[in-house]
């Protein structure tokens, strides 16, 4: 196992992560009720470039399937996986806690509550939905993380287990409020239920374009904060003695991570564990340096969620499994493994 890991680790990290993401994206577009052969897909993509003179020799339905359905869906999943995984890596570094994950920390449920709260106000979705829902989700995610952090804090320290227990409690509280709101609001909100379970009922290019700026800003800031996260691993007091403005760094990282989570939840619902698994695997493969760990988690998380989505769409086809079910299926045993490992290290 270790030997195999080290032979993988010798491939340049960003190349490996990019290949993984590229393959996942290609598979995600190719596989489905109608299979698109790889060669056809390449020619379809090349035909988008004017001047190459590639004439369509594929069924017209293929164009609709690829460009109207699968590609926008895959890109939304890609952005979601990237956001959750990058935020997970940042939370793990910020709280110095191997178990931190947007789902387990309660920030995803908080974002869900914020989003549903706005949806239940019966504002016209088309106009305000893409603006108000992510912002409300952002507020919800921040509120949840602050609550969890302060509930878990004992004197100056936050024990890893305490943080997760507080996360579970806040998460349950936010979820119950969310359920109440949804039942109150009647039929219109029902489709929100499917969304909330990670069923990403949204389709087409609009949610992709709407999510893109949020995810870019959030992950951009996190990617630039790698050194601050490295220094914070020595604890806040030492970080300050080494010349890091620790308070400012913590606030910036917390805001950016929660912003990413909010975008992911607002457009794809609550999907657990991807922000736990991917940063861990990245750390095992490529070491603890957050300047690399954050962007590598972003690439890896995008690819991993695409694969989870591929399973979700095809495992019981023609029915579709919520993607959160698939990530939890792999994520829960992984969580237990990390929990054991972190207790052994204590």
């Amino acid at each position: 196992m270790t030997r195999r890991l080290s032979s993988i680790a010798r491939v340049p990290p960003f190349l490996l992560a990019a290949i993984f993401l590229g393959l996942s994206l290609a598979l995600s577009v190719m596989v489905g009720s109608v299979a698109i052969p790889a060669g056809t897909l390449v020619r379809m993509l090349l035909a988008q470039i004017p001047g190459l003179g590639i004439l369509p020799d594929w069924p017209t339905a293929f164009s609709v399937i690829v460009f109207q359905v699968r590609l926008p869906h895959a890109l939304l999943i890609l952005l979601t996986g990237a956001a959750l995984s990058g935020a997970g890596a940042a939370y793990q570094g910020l709280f110095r806690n191997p178990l931190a994950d947007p789902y387990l920390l309660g920030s995803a449920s908080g974002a869900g509550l914020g989003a549903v709260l706005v949806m239940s106000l019966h504002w016209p979705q088309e106009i305000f939905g893409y603006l108000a829902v992510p912002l409300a989700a952002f507020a919800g995610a921040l509120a949840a993380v602050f609550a969890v952090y302060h509930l878990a804090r004992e004197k100056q320290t936050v024990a890893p287990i305490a943080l997760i227990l507080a996360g579970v409690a806040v998460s349950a509280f936010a979820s119950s409020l969310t359920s109440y709101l949804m039942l109150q609001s009647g039929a219109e909100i029902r489709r929100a239920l499917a969304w909330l379970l990670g069923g990403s009922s949204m389709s087409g290019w609009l949610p992709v374009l709407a999510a893109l700026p949020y995810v870019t800003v959030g992950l951009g800031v996190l990617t630039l904060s790698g050194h601050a996260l490295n220094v914070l691993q020595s604890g806040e007091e030492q970080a300050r003695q080494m010349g890091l403005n620790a308070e400012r760094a913590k606030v910036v990282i917390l805001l950016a991570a929660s912003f990413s989570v909010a975008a992911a939840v607002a457009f794809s619902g609550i999907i657990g564990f991807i922000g736990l698994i991917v940063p861990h695997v990245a750390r095992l493969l490529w070491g603890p340096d957050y300047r690399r760990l954050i962007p590598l988690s972003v690439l890896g998380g995008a690819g991993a969620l695409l694969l989870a989505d591929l399973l979700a769409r095809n495992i019981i086809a023609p029915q579709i499994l919520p993607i959160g079910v698939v990530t939890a299926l792999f994520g829960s045993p992984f969580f237990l493994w990390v929990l054991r490992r972190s207790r052994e290290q204590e």
Partner: protein
Amino acid sequence: MPETPLSIGFALHIQGLTAAYNGCLVLEDVSLDVPVGQVTALIGPNGAGKTTLIRAVSGTLRPRAGRIMINGREITNLPPEKRACLLAVAPQSGNLPGEFSVYQAVMMGRTPYLGWLGYPGKRDHEKTLHALELTETLHLARRRVASLSGGEQQRVLLARALAQETPVLLLDEPTTYLDLHHQVTFLQLVHRLAHQNNLAILAALHDLNLTSLYADRVALLSNGRLQAVGSPAETLTPANIQQAYRLAVRVIHHPKNGLPLILPEA
């Protein structure tokens, strides 16, 4: 660096420092000078305020009153990134993140010069290597921090503080978790660094006999006040120790160099 009359001979000048924890006064009106090229030991019983003084001077605890100056420049209100260019702290061992390599850990001492992104330049690599050389840890550079012994970790923490390139160094009970061999070699190293590299070092220490052997000056804290300060022979007297530690002691002299050694009156 411009010298003002206040700072001649002293890199670190503490004046009337008063600090409190949870509204409880822990340090009261402490004034202390830490000269360049010497090791000044900070001793005193548990709870006397040694760690509080280190924390207040290093800026992690906001003092209630008093001034802290380095080379004549007031540092009390400096932001962390500026303060870290003047003053570095080596904390107790066991506080290093274990997954990083020794080289990465020491490089983090360059933080005040690196900027937000943290990508080091040529000078940062040179200073890191130099700090590893000075602390005799260059052979450990590629090792993971978690795989080091306590003595090695303490040296790495010292190297990280040296990489910060500051005129003043604070050591917070650096020998607490070390055995006698490592305590002695570590303090010899600290002594040598102060004298050869012209550093002003303030080290909180527990062991009075090692303090006597390796400190140039000793500051005795008791109940949050500075009870005595001076050479080991001046400070480590039976009367001073008895008053601070509430323990009857006998002071004998080291057969080789005549420095005071403290024995409890059995």
